[in-house]
């Protein structure tokens, strides 16, 4: 494994990898649970539309909720069984808020619906993307963006390079690593299919140099193909898409742009494997590989049906079921505390770590910032975290924005190296949400102001119109009066003439 033609980004950190514990065993299949709870929103975008009702019998792989619009993903029954209910359940999300889920009671027959592989070489792109809309596949690296949307590119765009993200830079997580070791063929085939759909000239896989077995497996699978396997240094956050693109190609994708704007599209290894399974085998997205590690007895990777209770997974790994135990979803750099172990495994769940005071000690007391700028040295975006901290802490939000707060990718490198134990990223998250809220209320205020101005203008206009009408009326009245007066004068004159005449007649 040699690092060749790599463009190193500034900063980054190399925490203890803690990956070996969960790679000792092959990927195991987790048994079908007694109940599957499938959230309707497991992806970025619109909530999927429910297509079943309680009491319905469903088959494995049958669509039970349909993508609602473009930015949405459908959901399939992970096994055969009966729809129990559609209700609000707690989700594996930092908010801990409940959301709508479909609950399936498996019949343990695990009967597949008729699988319909798609001859992707024969049908045109539009049809293929339409088909993938039905696949339920989303970005399995954790971003859970609907995959068909990433394949749908505008006519004026061309994709020259497909990047396959095999970096898996967060400590503890090994689900991609194990997938590559065991199913490298699926990944390479999936990559080739994806490359062909995108019409990309090149396909490059970027893998960190700590995954030797995976590298060998991919290399072998990619023999006789044009897929290039490129090794990048083990340096968090190399798996961040923009960092990986830079490492591989030396191209910096600006904050306001997406990589597609520069002709590059990035997919995670597990996502392209899922594309392969859907198109070649006709299997929609119903399961994923999840790493369960940390303080559990046997850290391991499992292939888990979506909707499986997390507690099942924890039990399978010999984890603690004590209520005081904390579990982290994702890696230790960007993950979050799970609100409960009674949440379902979802498409976003790549790793669950049982926390312990030894692994993740309580944060030490915060000291003042001494401006040592270690954070600036560690920042992969070249930000000045010490300045952003200062501005965020003192609520100088405009200043924070000016110093490019929104370029921050919240990777946590700054907090990781801070001698004063300052939770820097939390300050940035806070400042970002404050600014967004302020912008929103400003926008609302602007709308209200515009409305009010419009209303005042209308009142003014109406007033004016009324005044004009009144004036006109008044004018009319005057004229009428004048006319009346004229008429009465004439009448009086006539009367006088008449009288005179009569008098004349009498005389």
């Amino acid at each position: 494994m040699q690092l060749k033609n790599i463009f190193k980004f500034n900063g980054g950190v190399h925490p203890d990898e803690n990956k070996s514990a969960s790679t000792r065993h092959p990927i195991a299949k987790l048994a079908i649970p007694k109940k599957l709870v499938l959230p309707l929103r497991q992806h970025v975008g619109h909530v999927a539309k429910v297509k079943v009702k309680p009491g319905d019998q469903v088959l494995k792989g049958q669509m039970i909720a349909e993508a609602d619009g473009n930015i949405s993903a459908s959901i399939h029954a992970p096994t055969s069984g009966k729809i129990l209910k559609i209700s609000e359940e707690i989700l594996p999300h930092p908010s801990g808020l409940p959301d709508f889920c479909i609950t399936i009671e498996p019949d343990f027959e695990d009967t597949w619906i008729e699988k319909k592989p798609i001859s992707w070489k024969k049908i045109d792109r539009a049809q293929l993307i339409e088909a993938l809309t039905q696949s339920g596949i989303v970005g399995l690296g954790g971003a859970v963006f609907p995959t068909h949307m990433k394949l749908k590119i505008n006519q004026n765009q061309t994709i020259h390079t497909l990047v396959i993200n095999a970096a898996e830079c967060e400590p503890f997580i090994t689900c991609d690593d194990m997938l590559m070791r065991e199913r490298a063929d699926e990944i390479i085939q999936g990559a080739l299919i994806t490359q062909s759909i995108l019409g990309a000239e090149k396909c490059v896989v970027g893998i960190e140099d700590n995954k030797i077995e995976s590298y060998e497996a991919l290399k072998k699978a990619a023999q006789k193909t044009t897929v290039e396997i490129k090794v990048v240094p083990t340096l968090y956050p190399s798996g961040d898409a923009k960092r990986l693109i830079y490492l591989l190609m030396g191209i910096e994708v600006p904050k306001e742009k997406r990589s597609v704007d520069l002709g590059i599209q990035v997919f995670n290894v597990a996502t392209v494997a899922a594309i392969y399974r859907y198109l070649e085998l006709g299997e929609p997205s119903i399961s994923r590989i999840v790493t369960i590690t940390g303080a559990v007895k046997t850290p391991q990777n499992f292939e888990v049906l979506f909707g499986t209770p997390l507690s099942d997974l924890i039990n399978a790994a010999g984890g603690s079921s004590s209520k005081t135990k904390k579990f982290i979803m994702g890696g230790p750099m960007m993950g979050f505390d799970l609100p409960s172990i009674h949440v379902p495994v979802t498409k976003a769940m790549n790793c669950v770590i049982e926390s312990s005071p030894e692994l993740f000690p309580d944060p030490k007391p915060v000291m003042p910032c001494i401006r040592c700028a270690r954070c600036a040295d560690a920042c992969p975006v070249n930000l000045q975290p010490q300045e952003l901290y200062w501005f965020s802490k003192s609520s100088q939000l405009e200043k924070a924005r000016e110093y490019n707060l929104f370029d921050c990718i919240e990777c946590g490198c700054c907090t990781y190296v801070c001698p004063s134990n300052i939770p820097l990223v939390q300050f940035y998250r806070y400042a970002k949400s404050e600014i967004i809220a302020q912008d929103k209320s400003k926008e609302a205020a602007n709308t209200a102001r515009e409305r009010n101005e419009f209303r005042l203008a209308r009142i003014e206009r109406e007033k004016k119109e009324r005044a004009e009408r009144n004036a006109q009326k008044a004018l009319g009245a005057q004229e009428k009066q004048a006319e009346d007066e004229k008429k009465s004068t004439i009448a009086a004159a006539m009367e006088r003439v008449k009288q005179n005449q009569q008098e004349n007649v009498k005389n």
Partner: protein
Amino acid sequence: MENRSPYIVNAPSVSTIMLKVLLALIPGIALYVYVFGLGVIINILLASLTVIMTESVILAIRKLPIKPFITDGSALVTAWLLALSIPSIAPWWIIVLGTLLCITFGKHVYGGLGYNLFNPAMVGYAILLISFPSIMTHWQIPNNLMASPSDWLDQIRVIFNSNLLPKETLDAMSSATPLDYIKTQLTLNQPLNTIQQDKIFGFIGGRGLELINLGYLAGGLYLFKEKIISWHLPVAFLSTLFLTALLFNVLAPDTFASPLFHIMSGGSMLCAFFIITDPVSAPTTPKGKIYFGAGIALLVFIIRIFGGYPEGIAFAVLLFNICAPLIDSLTQPRIFGHK
């Protein structure tokens, strides 16, 4: 639920950083003792004692937790730097008063650790230099240059009560620094090479002082190796001082001392590796550090040659401390993906 990530950290604590800075000063201090005797140790002890008491009192008044802020070690660094900056035979109250001033006016009036605009040690030093110019410019002669070498008890006597010593001994102990000596001799129209024949000059800089500067250089390299300081500040400072001195030296060798003399004299090395590298009062951007170091070096050179003081480090540092926020705002690095 709040997102608490990252859950892992790997950073030396502030205490560790400061401890390493103190450790890095040891070679310089050891050579100081070797050249001048134990006076400096007395000063360091007095400074340390004063700083711990003063800071504890101020923290108590400010209702801040005392233990974490005393053990962060930053006050000790300030105290030691001041002790190493003043003449080692100055009366005891000079270092006590100076340390008090550093911690009060240099540090806590601005809000304490992390908030000081100026380098605290240099604030104390500047006030002392202006208030007691005579004491602050009477430096000890290296032990081996004295007609009758003083014993270490004499040094303690002179620090605690100079009346205990006969005036001749006292006079024999102190002299101007080489930088000062050159300046006064030049006004007497002596050519530089004659001036530098004096016994107070060593191979490159002042006799003995050059050794101590080497000690600080060694400590500085240790700090660099430990990643406590980056190369920007020392390299910018020393190279600018060297090049400026070289320029003048080439133009008029009879009037301007060699560049090596400048970087090995006075407090050059202490300044390059320990004083301007105070992160709180220096710029944080890489480019900013270079401008900062270079600017201070220029100013040091100007004050040394043309100013009224023999050494200009304190004033140069303080003036550039004022500029640090501006330098930072003008030297923001390019953000990833920005033009």
